[in-house]
C-alpha cells in the first residue's frame, strides 16, 4: 500500500490538477420539489403478479420559464420495503404500524443537483416489485421497465394537458424527447430493460443516456445505440461480482452501426448502498447497512473493511460526492450537450473533479468510443488475436512468460482461475454466456514485448487523437502491492521510435487492493489513453507498428483488451473487404455469405463466380451448377472501395438434376408426370424451393391450366463421425449424479445428430436432451431405453446453426461412463460443421461426458431443379351453320369452321362427311354431330339439326290452289278449289321459321298481306287435317 501511495504521489505530481471544468458543482437554478402518490396498488401489468405503487418525487427548477427542460428518471433497487421502529420487512403494501421505506428519496441529493442545472428529475418508487420479484423468472425486470414507462406516460400528460396533482404547472416544461435514466442495484438492469422496452414500443420517449449504478445483470440484456455508463463500486458486498460491467463489455462490438459511446467507472472505495441515503446507516432509521459486511462480516479486509486501519473505503459523503460529479458529467454531456466535460468521460483527463473529493487513485474510467470514431487495432477476441489483429496484420510477442487469449471459451472462461467475484468481466451467470475475451501477458525481462503491426492503409496516425486500450494488473502473477509500468512505443517507416511510459498517463496499472477470501483482490479493466500527439520525434504519418515494451517494471502480469485508435471526430477510412461463407463445400448448392469488411461499407457487390451477383450485405446464394468457384466481394463507402477475392473458394457437388418429360391436356384434366433420378428421393414443388407437392417418381394432378412443376432429387449426405470414438482414450468411471453434466457444442452448418455411443452401468430409460445453452430452452428431448454396457443410441435430432448447444442426460437415472482424467482434447470438430467445445464441469476440458462417437449427417444433397410442364391446351369451339328446315327432297348446305379437320355423324344424307362444308338432304329430320380437331389435336364438337318437313305441292285430288301474283310485292291472293275448310295458311322463311300465320280460312279466295316481309324466297303452306300443300313464294 505504501508503494501505491508513493507512486500515486509521483503520478499526481505529473498530472497535477484537472483541466476540465467541474461538473459536480451546483447549478444556478433554485430548486423546488414535490411528491406524487396515486396509491400503493395502482399499476397492473401482466408481467408481474402483484399490483404496483405509483409513487414518486420530482425536483425541478423553481423558475420553469426557461423550459422545456430535459428529464431524468431515477429507479431504485431492491431493498426492504416497510419498517416499524428498527424492524424491516419485504411486505407490500405496508400495513398497521408499518410504514413504507422511501428508497426513491435516497437520491434526492443528486436530483437536487441536476435540477439546479436545469433538469426535471423524477425518482420513482418500486417497493412492490422488490417485494415479489424473486418469485418471477426475470426478477421483475420487465415490470421495472414498464413502471418507468408508466411514469413517463403520466408525465407526458402533465406536460401536455396537465392534471392532478400538478395542475398546469408542468405544461410545456418537460422535453420528453431528451430523457436520461439512472437505475441503482436491480434498478440498473431495470433501466436497461426500460430502454429496450421503450424501443420495442417505437421509442415514444427519447432515451438518450442510461446510467447503471452498481447494477445486477441477471438476464444479460444488451443495450446498444444509447450512451451508457456503468458504475462499479469495488467494495460492493451485495452485487459482489460487479456483474454490471457486462452492460459495457457485451455491447462493445455487438452492433457495427452503434454510434454511441460506452463508459464504465470503477470507484475503488465505494460500496453498494451508500449511493442511496435511505440505505445508508445513520441516514434512515431502519434497513440501512454497509453492504460490504455481507461478505466480510467484521469489516476486516485491508481495503474494503471499514474496521481495517488505513482502509480504502469512501465515507458515505465521499461516495455521494463521487456520484454527483460523475453522474453529472455523464448526463450533462449526453443529455445536456455540455461537451466541455468530455475529457472526464473519455479518459483524456484522469484527474477527478474537485467536487468528487476523490484522488486519481480512487477512481477509473473505461471509454469505448462509438464505431465511427475509432479503429480497432486488436479487440483481443479469440485465439486468432494472438497472431493476427483486427487490421489483418501480424501480431508479434517476444520473450513473454505468458501470452494467451483467455476468457473466450468455456474451457478458459476465467483468465486467472479465481472465479466470478475476483474476475467480474468473466462472471458467468445463470445462463452459459461467456464474459470478456482478453489477452493475458506476463513478463520477466526488459526485452519482452507485444507488438501489433499495421497495414499500409493505417499508417497515418495524425487522423487520430488517442491510442487507447483497457488493462488490469493480474494479481495472481504480479508482485503484490506493486504498481506496474511499461512503455508504449510507436515505430515509423524509418525505424525511428517514440516511447511513452503508461504510468505518465494513467494510474490504471495499480495492484488491485484487498485480500478477502474469494472476493478480493479482483480485476477490472480500465482504459489507458495516450494522446497520439505526445509521440514526438517520429513521422506520425508513417507508423508501422505499436509495441508494448515491458522494460519499466522488472516483472509483472497484465490483462488487456480493446486496443484501438480513437478520434474526437468521425474517422473515415476506405473499407477493407473481407467475407466468409458458412461452408465452402456443398452438395446442396446453398451457401450463406457474411460480410466481414471493416470501416463501415455502405455498398456491397458480390460475384459468386457462377455468373450470378448480389448487392446484399449478407447474401444467401444457391449454386445451380457443379464446380469450383472463385468469389469476390467489392465494398464501398464514401472514402473508397476495396475488393477481396477468394480463389477457388466454393466447391459445389450436387446430384444431377432429375429427368422428366412434360405432358399436355386439352382444356383441363388429369395429368400424370414421370421423373427419373439417380436413386434418391424426387420431390415435386410448385416453384424452386416452394411448396412441396409430392414425393416420388410419379406425380398425378388435375390441371385447369398449363402448370409448371419443379422436381429436385434429394440424396442422403455422407455419414460423419465426431467426438471420441469410444471411452478408451482416457480413464474415468460411471457418473450417477442427475442432470448435472453435459457437453457444449457449436453447430456451424445444419445436420442431423443420428446417434451417439454410450456406456451404461445398468439398463434403464434415460432422457437425453439438447438445449440451446446450459439452463436454456430444450430443443430436443428423447426418452431412450439404454441397455447395460455399450450401445448406440439413435437420436435423429435435426440441429440448426447455433453456438453453445448443450447435450445432457436429465432425470433421475444417469449412470453413464465419462472421462475425468484430463485426457479429452477439445475441441472435437469437423471444420465448418460442428465443434464439441467442452463440458460444463470446471475446468471444462478435463472431462468428457457420456456421448461418444457422434454420427452426424449434414442436410441431404439436393440436385438443381428440373422444370416440368403440364400443358393445358386452351379449349376451342367450332362454329356451325344454323339449324335448318328443308322440304323433303331439298338439299341444304351444312358448314363447320374453327378446326383443321372435321367429321360429321351420322353420315346419312351428307355429301362429304369429312369436310367442313357438306351438302345435306336427309329424308327425315336429322341431328348431325360435327367433331373438329385443332392444330394441337384437341377435339371440339357441335350439333346441327336439319328439320325435314312435308313435300312440295302435295295436294289432295281435285284440289286447285292458285297464288296470284307470285312473285308478289306483298299482297298475295290465294284461290282454292276443292279443299276442305277451314284450313291454315303459314309462311315460313328458308330457315323454317314461321313468319306469317292465318288460321281458320273458310273462303275460296283470300288476300294475304306480306308487306312486312323482306324480299326473298319463302314457303307458303296451306293445311288442315285433310290436306297439306307447300308452295314456293317469292317476295320482291
Amino acid at each position, binding site marked *: 500500500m505504501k508503494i501505491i501511495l508513493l507512486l500515486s504521489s509521483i503520478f499526481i505530481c505529473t498530472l497535477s490538477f484537472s483541466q476540465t471544468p467541474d461538473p459536480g458543482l451546483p447549478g444556478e437554478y433554485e430548486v423546488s420539489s414535490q411528491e406524487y402518490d396515486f396509491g400503493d396498488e395502482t399499476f397492473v401489468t401482466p408481467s408481474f403478479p402483484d399490483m404496483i405503487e405509483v409513487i414518486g418525487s420530482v425536483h425541478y427548477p423553481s423558475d420553469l420559464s426557461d423550459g422545456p427542460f430535459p428529464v431524468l428518471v431515477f429507479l431504485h433497487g431492491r431493498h426492504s420495503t416497510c419498517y416499524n421502529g428498527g424492524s*424491516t420487512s419485504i411486505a407490500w403494501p405496508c400495513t398497521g404500524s408499518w410504514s413504507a421505506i422511501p428508497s426513491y428519496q435516497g437520491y434526492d441529493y443528486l436530483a437536487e443537483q441536476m435540477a439546479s442545472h436545469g433538469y426535471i428529475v423524477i425518482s420513482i418508487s418500486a417497493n412492490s416489485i422488490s417485494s415479489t420479484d424473486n418469485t418471477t423468472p426475470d426478477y421483475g425486470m420487465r415490470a421495472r421497465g414498464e413502471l418507468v414507462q408508466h411514469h413517463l406516460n403520466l408525465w407526458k400528460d402533465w406536460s401536455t394537458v396537465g392534471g392532478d396533482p400538478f395542475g398546469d404547472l408542468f405544461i410545456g416544461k418537460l422535453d420528453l424527447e431528451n430523457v436520461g435514466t439512472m437505475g441503482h442495484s436491480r434498478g440498473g438492469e431495470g433501466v436497461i430493460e426500460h430502454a429496450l422496452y421503450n424501443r420495442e414500443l417505437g421509442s415514444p420517449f427519447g432515451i438518450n443516456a442510461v446510467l447503471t449504478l452498481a447494477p445486477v445483470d441477471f438476464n444479460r440484456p444488451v443495450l446498444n445505440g444509447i450512451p451508457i455508463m456503468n458504475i462499479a463500486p469495488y467494495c460492493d458486498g451485495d452485487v*459482489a461480482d460487479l456483474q454490471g460491467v457486462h452492460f459495457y463489455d457485451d455491447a462493445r462490438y455487438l452492433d457495427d452501426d452503434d454510434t454511441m459511446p460506452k463508459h464504465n467507472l470503477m470507484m475503488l472505495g465505494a460500496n453498494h448502498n451508500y449511493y442511496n441515503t435511505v440505505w445508508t*446507516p445513520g441516514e434512515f432509521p431502519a434497513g440501512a447497512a454497509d453492504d460490504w*459486511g455481507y461478505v466480510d462480516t467484521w469489516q476486516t479486509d485491508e481495503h474494503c473493511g471499514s474496521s481495517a486501519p488505513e482502509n480504502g473505503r469512501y465515507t458515505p459523503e465521499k461516495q455521494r460526492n463521487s456520484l454527483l460529479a460523475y453522474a453529472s458529467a455523464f448526463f450533462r454531456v449526453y443529455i445536456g450537450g455540455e461537451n466541455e466535460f468530455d475529457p472526464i468521460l473519455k479518459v483524456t483527463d484522469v484527474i477527478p473533479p474537485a467536487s468528487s473529493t476523490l484522488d486519481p487513485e480512487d477512481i477509473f474510467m473505461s471509454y469505448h468510443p462509438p464505431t465511427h470514431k475509432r479503429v480497432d487495432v486488436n479487440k483481443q477476441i479469440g485465439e486468432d488475436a494472438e497472431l493476427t489483429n483486427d487490421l489483418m496484420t501480424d501480431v508479434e510477442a517476444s520473450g513473454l512468460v505468458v501470452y494467451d487469449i483467455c476468457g473466450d471459451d468455456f474451457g478458459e472462461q476465467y483468465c486467472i482461475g479465481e472465479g*466470478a467475484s475476483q474476475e467480474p468481466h468473466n462472471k458467468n451467470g445463470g445462463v452459459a454466456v461467456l464474459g470478456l475475451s482478453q489477452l493475458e501477458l506476463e513478463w520477466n525481462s526488459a526485452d519482452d514485448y507485444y507488438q501489433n503491426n499495421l497495414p499500409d492503409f493505417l499508417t497515418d496516425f495524425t487522423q487520430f487523437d488517442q491510442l487507447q486500450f483497457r488493462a488490469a494488473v493480474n494479481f495472481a502473477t504480479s508482485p503484490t502491492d506493486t504498481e506496474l509500468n511499461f512503455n508504449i512505443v510507436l515505430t515509423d517507416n524509418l525505424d525511428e521510435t517514440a516511447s511513452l511510459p503508461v504510468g505518465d498517463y494513467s494510474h490504471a496499472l495499480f495492484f488491485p487492493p484487498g485480500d478477502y*477470501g474469494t472476493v478480493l483482490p479482483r480485476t477490472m479493466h480500465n482504459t489507458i489513453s495516450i494522446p497520439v500527439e505526445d509521440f514526438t520525434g517520429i513521422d506520425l504519418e508513417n507508423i508501422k507498428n505499436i509495441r508494448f515494451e515491458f522494460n519499466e517494471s522488472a516483472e509483472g502480469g497484465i490483462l488487456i483488451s480493446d486496443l484501438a485508435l480513437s478520434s474526437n471526430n468521425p474517422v473515415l477510412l476506405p473499407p477493407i473487404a473481407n467475407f466468409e461463407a458458412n461452408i465452402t463445400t456443398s452438395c446442396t448448392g446453398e451457401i450463406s455469405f457474411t460480410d466481414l469488411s471493416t470501416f463501415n461499407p455502405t455498398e456491397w457487390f458480390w460475384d459468386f463466380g457462377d455468373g450470378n451477383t448480389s448487392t446484399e450485405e449478407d447474401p444467401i446464394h444457391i449454386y445451380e451448377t457443379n464446380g469450383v468457384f472463385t468469389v469476390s466481394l467489392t465494398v464501398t463507402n464514401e472514402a473508397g472501395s476495396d475488393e477481396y477475392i477468394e480463389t477457388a473458394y466454393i466447391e459445389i457437388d450436387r446430384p444431377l438434376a432429375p429427368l422428366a418429360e412434360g405432358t399436355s391436356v386439352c382444356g383441363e384434366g388429369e395429368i400424370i408426370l414421370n421423373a427419373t433420378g439417380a436413386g434418391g428421393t424426387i420431390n415435386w414443388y410448385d416453384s424452386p424451393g416452394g411448396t412441396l407437392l409430392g414425393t416420388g417418381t410419379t406425380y398425378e394432378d388435375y390441371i385447369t391450366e398449363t402448370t409448371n412443376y419443379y422436381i429436385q432429387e434429394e440424396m442422403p449426405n455422407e455419414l460423419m463421425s465426431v467426438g471420441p470414438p469410444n471411452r478408451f482414450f482416457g480413464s474415468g468411471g460411471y457418473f450417477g449424479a442427475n442432470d448435472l453434466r453435459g457437453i457444449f457444442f457449436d453447430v456451424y452448418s445444419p445436420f442431423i445428430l443420428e446417434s451417439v455411443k454410450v456406456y451404461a452401468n445398468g439398463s434403464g430409460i434415460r432422457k437425453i436432451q439438447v438445449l440451446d445453452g446450459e439452463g436454456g430452452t430444450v430443443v430436443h428431448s428423447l426418452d431412450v431405453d439404454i441397455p447395460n454396457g455399450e450401445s448406440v443410441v439413435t437420436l435423429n435430432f435435426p440441429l440448426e446453426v447455433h453456438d453453445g448447444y448443450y447435450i445432457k442426460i436429465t432425470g433421475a437415472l444417469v449412470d453413464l461412463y465419462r472421462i475425468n482424467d484430463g485426457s479429452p482434447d477439445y475441441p472435437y470438430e469437423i471444420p465448418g460443421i460442428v465443434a464439441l467445445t467442452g463440458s460444463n464441469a470446471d475446468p471444462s476440458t478435463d472431462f468428457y461426458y457420456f456421448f461418444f462417437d457422434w454420427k452426424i449427417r449434414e442436410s441431404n444433397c439436393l440436385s438443381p431443379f428440373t422444370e416440368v410442364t403440364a400443358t393445358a391446351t386452351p379449349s376451342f369451339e367450332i362454329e356451325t351453320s344454323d339449324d335448318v328446315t328443308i322440304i323433303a327432297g331439298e338439299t341444304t348446305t351444312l358448314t363447320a369452321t374453327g378446326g383443321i379437320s372435321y367429321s360429321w355423324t351420322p353420315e346419312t344424307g351428307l355429301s362429304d362427311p369429312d369436310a367442313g362444308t357438306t351438302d345435306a338432304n336427309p329424308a327425315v329430320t336429322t341431328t348431325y354431330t360435327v367433331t373438329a380437331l385443332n392444330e394441337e389435336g384437341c377435339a371440339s364438337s357441335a350439333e346441327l339439326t336439319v328439320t325435314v318437313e312435308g313435300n312440295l305441292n302435295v295436294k289432295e285430288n281435285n284440289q286447285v290452289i292458285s297464288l296470284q301474283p307470285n312473285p308478289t310485292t306483298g299482297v298475295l291472293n290465294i284461290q282454292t278449289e276443292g279443299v276442305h275448310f277451314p284450313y291454315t295458311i303459314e309462311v315460313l322463311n328458308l330457315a323454317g321459321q314461321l313468319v306469317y300465320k292465318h288460321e281458320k280460312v273458310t273462303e275460296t279466295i283470300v288476300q294475304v298481306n306480306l308487306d312486312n316481309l323482306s324480299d326473298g324466297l319463302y314457303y307458303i303452306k296451306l293445311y288442315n287435317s285433310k290436306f297439306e300443300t307447300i308452295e314456293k313464294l317469292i317476295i320482291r
Partner: protein
Amino acid sequence: MKKHLLLLTLFIGCFFASYSSFAQSEAAVYFNSLTLNQDSSKVLLSIKTTESFIVGANRYVLHIGGQTFYQSFHPKGELNEIIFFIPTYDFSNLIAQSNMVLVYGFYHQNTLQDGEGNSQHGYIGKHWRIGEFTPELLKKN
C-alpha cells in the same frame, strides 16, 4: 473517563446497529420444513433464521447437491423465513442426503459440487450450510 465510556458505548451501539439487520452467522440459518403447495405442483422448502435475511440486489440461491433453485419469497414479507419453490419433478430427482447450501448470489462455481474435482473449492459467496436433503420430511397435505 465517563466521556470515554460514553463514546465506547456509542461506538458499540452504532457497530451493532449497522450489522444486526442481516443474518451473519451460520448457526443462525437453518432448514425449517418441506411442504407441497396447494396444487401439488411445487414443493416449498422453508429456511429460517434467528436474525434476518438480507434484502438487497442479489438473490438467494439454494443448492441441493448439484441442483440450483432461484425462485423464493418471504412469507408475509417477514425476513426470518425464506421459502424456495422446487418443482415436484425436480424434487423427485434430487438425491437424498445431498448437501443443502443457501448462498447469497449465484456463482457458477457453486454448481460444481459433484465430486468432479471441484468440490474441494467449497462454496463461494456468503453462504450457509443447512444440512442434508431429506425428502422423507415432505409433509403431505
